């Protein structure tokens, strides 16, 4: 069954000159082919509007991190191009990167330095940082992520949640127009996940565009205004959260002891994708009206003990888009 239309193809002839420079992130045909021939990122067109919280979703290995590495200039795309805060990929990137806070593939710091020293190290590498306010900015960033009390402990002894928060603090060392956070909740317990979420909300509330990747839809769906869904290197969905929700087609669920008869009746009425389980029959509702179906069933002497229409959960949509994984269906 298909809940979602395939992503429409990119209009032919779109080239770098036509990338909307007002988007926070815009990519056209962005691709990365690894040396082994594997296409890790396959021709994706991201459009991240300024001010949005963009959830970049997809299972592990779907190309999210590689995309983020290209956006930040860590890797060179093998095809396609992009603009970041209006600056073109390539040499122009270093001019806008100071306005971008980034956490790529988990936090990475020196284990033998304290949290504060690690942030000082990041700030020292910044070619345009305000040298007069370093200490104050570091303290403010530590405070924002709730690490001020642990600022002088060595990074080595930080918990995973503290490490992730320090990674975000590095992105907060100066006001940013864009935060790119790669799996900021990876490996965190529910409490830690909630902390990160509220942190992202705060950052977004200040007007910063947030581009956050995750392999778990549930972790970010509450905070995102937009989503892009990756599956095996392709962007299979992109749009607002409500667009994603509305994409799921409603289904009718009928509870009855006469499963087979009910299924036949639904098929006869022209409903598609009829499935029957123990005491439940379901089908894609389409343009049909539930009350009409109910009347038809009753007229056919089928005892209906329950009837409801359901929209697939976001989780279902997500799984639908990205594939089931290993033998989920047995």
């Amino acid at each position: 069954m298909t809940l979602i239309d395939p992503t429409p193809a990119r209009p032919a002839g779109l080239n770098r000159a036509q990338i909307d420079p007002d988007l926070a992130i815009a990519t056209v045909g962005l691709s990365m082919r690894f040396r082994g021939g594997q296409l890790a990122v396959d021709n994706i067109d991201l459009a991240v509007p300024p001010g949005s919280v963009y959830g970049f979703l997809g299972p592990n290995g779907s190309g999210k991190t590689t995309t983020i590495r290209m956006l930040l200039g860590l890797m060179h795309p093998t095809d396609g191009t992009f603009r970041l805060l209006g600056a073109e990929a390539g040499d122009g990137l270093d001019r806008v990167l100071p306005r971008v806070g980034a956490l790529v593939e988990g936090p990475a710091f020196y284990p033998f330095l304290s949290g504060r020293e690690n942030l000082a190290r990041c700030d020292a590498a910044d070619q345009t940082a305000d040298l007069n306010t370093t200490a104050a900015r570091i303290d403010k960033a530590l405070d924002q992520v709730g690490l001020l009390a642990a600022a002088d402990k060595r990074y080595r002894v930080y918990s995973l949640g503290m490490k992730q928060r320090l990674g975000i603090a590095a992105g907060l060392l100066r006001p940013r127009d864009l935060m790119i956070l790669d799996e900021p909740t990876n490996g965190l317990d529910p409490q830690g996940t909630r902390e990160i979420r509220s942190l992202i909300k705060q950052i977004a509330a200040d007007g910063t565009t947030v581009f956050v990747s995750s392999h778990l839809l549930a972790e970010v769906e509450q905070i995102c205004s937009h989503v892009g869904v990756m599956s095996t290197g392709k962007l299979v969905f992109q749009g607002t959260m409500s667009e994603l929700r509305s994409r799921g087609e409603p289904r009718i669920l009928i509870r009855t002891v006469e499963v087979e008869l009910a299924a036949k009746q639904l098929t006869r009425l022209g409903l598609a994708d009829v499935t029957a389980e123990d005491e439940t029959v379901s089908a894609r509702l389409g343009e049909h009206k539930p009350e009409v179906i109910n009347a038809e069933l009753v007229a056919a002497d089928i005892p209906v003990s329950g009837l409801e229409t359901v929209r697939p959960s976001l989780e279902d949509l997500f799984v639908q888009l990205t594939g089931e994984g290993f033998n989920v269906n047995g």
Partner: protein
Amino acid sequence: MSTASTAQASTAQAGTGPVQPASPMLTPAGQLTHWLRLFRSELRIVFLRPRNLAMFAVLAAAPIFLGIVLKINTPPAGAGGPSGPGEFIGQVAENGVFLSLLAIFVLMTLVLPLSVAVVSGDSVAGEAGLGTLRTLLTVPAGRVRLLVTKYLMIVVFCFTASALVAVTGLVMGALLFPIGPVTLLSGATVPLIDGLARLAMIVVYVAVGLSALGALGLALSTFTQHAIAVMAAILVIVMASEILDAISQVASIHPYLPTHFWLTFDALLRTPITWPDIWHGLASFAIYTVIFGAIALTRIQRANVTC
């Protein structure tokens, strides 16, 4: 952290500025100030790292150990033979300055190159392994800027390591043995101050030689995220070079070997100083530095940072 009550960010807030001007252009003076800050940070990382401090301790311990051994078991003057470390061993008991020279000579065969291998291997590969390379590059530190900073850090390390060995040797020599006018390898005796000046020149020469090895290490370091692989590779190269240098059948390639001129500093202990040997050595070091510096620069700009 209090939970922000704000709902989802709205789609199109104004002023999130893709059209804002890019970061302000810095004046050259401003660029220098910022670079010095990065350089200081780099030096702090290297010189305060516990493992590197242990390495410095080993470098300082070697002359101390040599001094004690030679104090307990003093070889007679002229013992040890006419060349190699023997040139110095026999003289240590008469003049403590030679403990410093002996220490440099002995450590130059393995321990000093090893320390350079560790630091240069760490420089890029180590950062890549920790993941801090991506943190620095996304700041952005600038790829070329970071690499140049790293190399200058390696040079500072080379000078520090050589000087540490020389100074510890000198202090230990002064404590254990008499110090006075220095009898050179050519037989002439020069005043102590002249001898110390020659020792200082030797420290500089050795440090430049090590810096050339550091450039090799830096280049290798840009190809991997395993610092240990760089260290191993450098040691293999040093060993192979030293072995080839000892085989007279391949004498024609000797001048091209990276280690060939390392011990040529004994030219500074003759009267008159045989400068051509020194210039040859420095030219060899310079060529190695330029070649591998260029490889490192090319590589760092092209590399995909995947770790």
